[in-house]
């Protein structure tokens, strides 16, 4: 096979795992309460800056910042729910959209004001270098990030499918009233979902910080891609988001291979539009 094509498939696959993780967090929140978190990409951005700050000021390798970013963004998610989302849960749709939009702009430009718009990166980490296998170059940070994303997605999948709390989240998503009849407090479940969603984005950000440029608007790219993934996988479907994340990673990478790289996002958005119009519930969505 053409080595360039192999290379494109490999990097698409590796990126796809990260997309899956970001999207899993987004789809969880959407599935449970029908709210789109437009600030999701910026949660990821905060995860990246967490790594950056810990590295620059305390010399902590980004590998060890991953749990810190996860915990921090869990808190950010919960606080977002308690201060904003809870108040607009039954509000008009326009207001629901805009409250998280406001949060997105706020977070993005607070970071912008503090760290300036510069592109930053973390150099000389524990994970650096590349190796070559079957004529394909694989970056070690990319590989570790993909593995980390896979593990984290797996943990979320396990929580959702094999724990009582996960069942309570699914139950609340499906029927809030019936969940209440079981003695489940929906408010607590919502709060928790935002926490898990935030943590997923935070961990993804910290994983990306090992090799990706860090800048205030980085969340925009990942946030929009996460929407595409969620939509393709089916709103609210965790395993859908997982599969769709990998697909979108591949499409983006292969799109950049067959056409000029500037157009690669067009492919991604075209899938998005196509899926919305033809099969709005996505590949694995439940109606």
């Amino acid at each position, binding site marked *: 096979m053409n080595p360039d094509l192999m290379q494109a498939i490999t990097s698409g696959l590796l990126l796809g795992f990260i997309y899956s993780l970001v999207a899993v967090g987004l789809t969880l929140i959407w599935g449970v309460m*029908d709210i*789109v978190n437009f600030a999701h990409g910026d949660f990821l951005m905060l995860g990246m800056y967490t790594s950056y700050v810990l590295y620059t000021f305390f010399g902590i390798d980004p590998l060890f910042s991953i749990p810190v970013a996860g915990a921090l963004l869990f808190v950010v998610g919960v606080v977002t729910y308690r201060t*904003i989302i809870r*108040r*607009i849960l039954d*509000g*008009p*749709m*326009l*207001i*629901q*959209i*805009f*409250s998280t*939009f*406001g*949060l*997105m*702009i*706020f*977070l*993005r*430009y*607070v970071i*912008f*004001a503090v760290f*300036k*718009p510069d592109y930053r990166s973390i150099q000389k980490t524990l994970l650096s270098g590349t190796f070559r296998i079957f004529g394909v170059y694989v970056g070690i940070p990319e590989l570790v990030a993909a593995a980390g994303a896979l593990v984290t997605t797996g943990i979320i999948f396990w929580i959702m499918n094999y724990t009582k709390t996960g069942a309570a989240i699914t139950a609340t998503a499906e029927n809030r009233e019936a969940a209440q009849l079981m003695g489940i407090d929906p408010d607590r479940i919502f709060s928790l979902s935002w926490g898990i969603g935030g943590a997923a984005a935070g961990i993804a950000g910290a994983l990306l910080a090992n090799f990706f440029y860090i800048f205030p608007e980085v969340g*925009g790219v990942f946030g*929009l891609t996460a*929407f*595409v993934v969620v*939509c393709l996988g089916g709103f609210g479907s965790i395993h859908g988001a997982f599969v769709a994340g990998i697909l979108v990673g591949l499409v983006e990478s292969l799109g950049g291979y067959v056409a*000029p790289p*500037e*157009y690669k*996002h*067009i492919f991604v*958005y*075209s899938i*998005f*539009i196509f899926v*919305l*119009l033809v099969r*709005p519930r996505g590949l694995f969505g439940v109606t």
Partner: protein
Amino acid sequence: MNLTGLFLIRKEELNLRSLLFTLGGVFLALAYPFVFRKPFPQDLLIKVLLFAFLGNAWNILGGLAGQVSLGHAMFFGLGAYTSTLLFLNFGVSPWVGLVAGAFLAGVVSIILGYPSFKLKGHYFAMITIAFGEVFHILFRNVDAVGGASGLFLPILDESFGNFYFGVNKIPYLYIILSFYLLSTLTIFLLDRSKVGFYLRAINSEEDAARSLGVNSALYKSVAMFFSALFTAMGGTFYAQYVTFIDPPSVYHLMLSIQIVLIVILGGVGTLFGPLVGAAVLIPLSEFTRIYLGGTGRGYDLIIYGLLIIVFAVYQPTGLMGLIRRRK
């Protein structure tokens, strides 16, 4: 059938007081550049009116028909690029370009809107984001339309026919004022015609509207058409006023957001909400940019973000809602 029968004009809306009020407002706007003779305040009013105009345009679809679009920058960009490209390549007058751009945007809006209208709520909003981004990427990468470096309008003779007045801001001010008034009158009349009733009915309870014989897809398309048409006019105006356009300035998602934000701040679906919203937000962002954001640090946008959150949580009916409550 007589024409007046087509619109419902209530007596209280046409009394002497509201007439004087409106004329007074128009007079103040006309006199404004003679009181404030510096470019900055004149530029400020032009921007306020431009965004009030764009807010009105968005309101036809978002406020009346209840379809939340987050991709209106694509119509703005289409207007700006159509007139500019027609002029640069074929020497077509920007006024003709304005009409062409508006019409093109209207047609595009129907082509994209008709299949999208079956999507509800968040889904519709998201597909409009996707459309907007596709336009953004395309114009950024196609060299025939200037690509990422954008397009400059050459310096021309200052005349109405050329839609170019150099540093003299007064004509621009009057042009955008008349655009704004035109859009306001259109909404005023639309709202009081069968179309307006139908749009509000669709907005409120689509199933019930259909049970009363309302072809909802058709009427949403009508709203989208007018909405896109006016937005594109704003785009042409912007291109002629700033004389430089590039994808980030006319196709950016943030522009779409800003338009909606102005409407939300002012009051969704109200006649003067967009003007009130623009009159508050545009000066606020200009002043914070000048006094806080000298180094491009985006303080203005932090305030933007906070404002949106606060309004969403505490004052979802916007400033017009506040004013009404006072009454």
